[in-house]
């Protein structure tokens, strides 16, 4: 029981491009990535798409679908109305390479700026002991599949100037996962404030809304980091945030 659906797909490269229309047969149960593959095999062999797992696990297939940043492999066709045209375009926060593929290397550069774990010594019997309740939070952050949907949504990064001053939500949770890691012996607070720009985030929570892993980026990572910064430096913005939004302090 397949139906014919209208797709508008952005085609082009760094020099520019525009939307091309395609009529595609869609079978029940299909996700947007399946439809794009069908276009690729039958109508546009060189349509550039990035994907790997088609199971929501690798974070490669990010794009903007009807204006919303999404994983195309986890977006089922039945979330759209029966006659809705589906518009697909590359992430806006990063430069286009071709069609739906963007250059996300900026993110890899940010990641490399973060110093790795500095482990405390092992116990006398050669083991590292950590308790589940102490790692639950860190594990939440480590669910991240680096799809960069949050980066794409964050207005600080979308305005390209911001990319010099803020690492973005993805790397705030990575910093949080180290800062809250029971084995980490490093002090990361000064650079979280200065180099990584924790003060740039104004807690709009847009990143949290798009995260396909449902990581509570803002409340569980960014706000606690801001609080740790405040504890040390008395950052007035968060102080205000605490007053205005009644965000309580977690120990």
């Amino acid at each position, binding site marked *: 029981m397949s139906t014919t659906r209208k797709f508008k797909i952005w085609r082009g490269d760094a020099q520019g491009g525009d939307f091309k229309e395609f009529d595609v047969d869609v079978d029940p*149960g299909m996700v947007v990535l399946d439809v794009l593959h069908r276009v690729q095999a039958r109508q546009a062999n*060189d349509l550039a798409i990035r994907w*790997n797992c088609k199971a929501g696990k690798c974070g490669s297939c990010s794009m903007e679908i009807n204006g919303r940043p999404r994983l195309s492999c986890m977006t*089922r066709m039945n979330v759209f109305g029966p006659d809705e045209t589906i518009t697909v375009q590359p992430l806006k926060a990063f430069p286009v390479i071709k*069609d739906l593929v963007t250059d996300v290397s900026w993110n890899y550069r940010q990641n490399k700026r973060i110093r790795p*774990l500095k482990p405390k010594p092992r116990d006398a019997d050669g083991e590292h002991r950590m308790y589940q309740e102490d790692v639950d939070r860190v594990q939440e952050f480590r*669910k991240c*599949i680096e799809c960069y949907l949050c980066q794409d949504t964050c207005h600080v990064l979308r305005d390209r100037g911001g990319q010099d001053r803020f690492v973005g939500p993805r790397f705030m949770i990575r910093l949080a996962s180290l800062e809250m890691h029971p084995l980490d012996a490093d002090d990361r607070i000064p650079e979280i404030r200065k180099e990584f720009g924790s003060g740039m985030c104004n807690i709009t929570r847009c990143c949290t809304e798009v995260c396909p892993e449902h990581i509570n980026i803002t409340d569980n990572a960014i706000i606690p980091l801001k609080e740790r910064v405040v504890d040390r430096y008395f950052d007035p913005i968060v102080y205000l945030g605490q007053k205005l939004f009644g965000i309580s302090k977690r120990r």
Partner: protein
Amino acid sequence: MSLDISELKTIETDITVIGAGGAGLRAAIESSAQGLKTVVLSKSLLGKAHTVMAEGGMAAAMGNVDKRDNWKVHFRDTMRGGKFLNLWRMAELHAKQAPARVKELEEWGAVFDRTKEGLISQRNFGGHRYPRLAHVGDRTGLELIRTLQDHGVHQGIDFLMECTALRLLKDGERVAGVLAYYRETGRFVLIRSRAVILATGGAGKAWRVTSNSWEYTGDGTYLAYEAGAELMDLEFTQFHPTGMVWPLSVRGILVTEGVRGDGGILLNKDGKRFMFDYVPERFAAETADTVDEATRWLNGDKNARRPPELLTRDVVARSIRAEIKAGRGSPHGGAFLDIASRRPADFIKRRLPGMYHQFKELAEVDITKEPMEVGPTLHYFMGGVRVDADTQMTRVPGLFACGECGAGMHGANRLGGNSLSDLIVFGTLAGKGAADYARSLGASPRADDEQIKVAIRGATEILNRESGENPYLLHEKLQDVMEEGVGIVRAEDELKQGIRGIEELGERAKNMKAAGTSQYNPGWHEALSMRSLLVTAEAVARSALMRQESRGAHTRLDYEGERDEWVKYNIVCRKSPDGHMECEKVLRPPAAPYLEEIANSKIEDLESGKVGAAAPND
């Protein structure tokens, strides 16, 4: 077109690793730690390799949950699971070294689930006698790859992302480098290297129903084959018993064995728990024979035997297939996998969050309330490039292979969780082996320009041709051929038909055409991958035809059961001087006597120390 090789972008290095999954990253970390200049290539972005999908865990006999576990029991389980065809030495090295490799990941930031005592928790899995799999919920592969990635980027390794290897270059017999191309620009890059490590994974994309990602096109087996190395055990392709079957567009996506490890049971359409009917003799003594005993095991009774759902994958996959064939399948042609009636909803959501999410999003099934529908899906290549057990070197000097693209560790059937541990154990050994080799070389080998030109022409002709075959449609045809001729059960006529089909497609593939330019062109990439797929598929079909018995993942309708004669041989394929694929039975290396004794022992004798007490522990 005239080509000037001196104008190509050229990189000079000691070690080149092709592949950035668990095996490739671990190998690169090792060779770099040994002080050698190391370059890593991957078809995808860093952190996206197939390893990221692994769910259930990595096996290592740390004994954190059950103190009775140790390397000997792990080794014995691995050999039995592999139906005694594993390379003895590899299974030994793996069982002995896995615990140290897993613990080392903690130093690099990995955060595994914990036991009450604060140690790394371990879960049950098929074929493993004790809870043995270190895990993080059902996303263990992500934890492994992110840990290696975040550690690796600080080790001075050079990463070339979205850069695909096209051909291995040689200087006489020795390896001398790699020709590759950047997908982003379509430009070629010449990497001159003293040693090359293949870590490219498997080739599941030759089949339609598979758990594998697009990367799994057998590039490593193809590159090695063309360079004169040997392929081994290709007939052993693992069909995982539980892939999704519905909706059609997600058919094949994996449902982790962790569901059964955590208590899930298999039912047919009549609600019968059918696995009790399919227990093979070899495992009968160690498997529960009543529902009552299986339930006691689930509730932690250490004297109860394991439920039959946790038999090895080959057995479970064939049993599900048999139920479907007999007309007792689920509505969409699978079996029911039920955990909803066995465990409370919050337990399921905590232990199997990925599965909960996957079924909810893709199939609109709530696994805490309803059973899943599952069926066999092509999952893993036990076979691959033939290597030396201790150094991971192939018969081509300077060429190494590790991880899923290597062969020998898993024999005729891999146990779940033994792959992630394989990656870190043999990745490390390959990194060390390559470093030792590179250091021992005198002057750097140097490939002549002609080889490089041939490789470049071979790639660009696909773009330059006026018209030709659509690579995507050829790939779909190959998937038809493999599903029909080289599936989960096999027979001579179908296999011969399969080989003919592959040969025909091979002819047509000589005339493939990719439209568009060389810049980020998936059609071109698809055409290049077809060459790897075809060679790998042919090796699977030919080896499967040659092995006249049923063993592990290789099932022949016309040769039922294991034949004693055949346990003596591996099947090896190589490129003959006239360019054809030749396959041969080769005698396996003998086992060290203590290993043979442990593998064949009764479990009570091994645990009481009556057997294996004198075996060396390092």
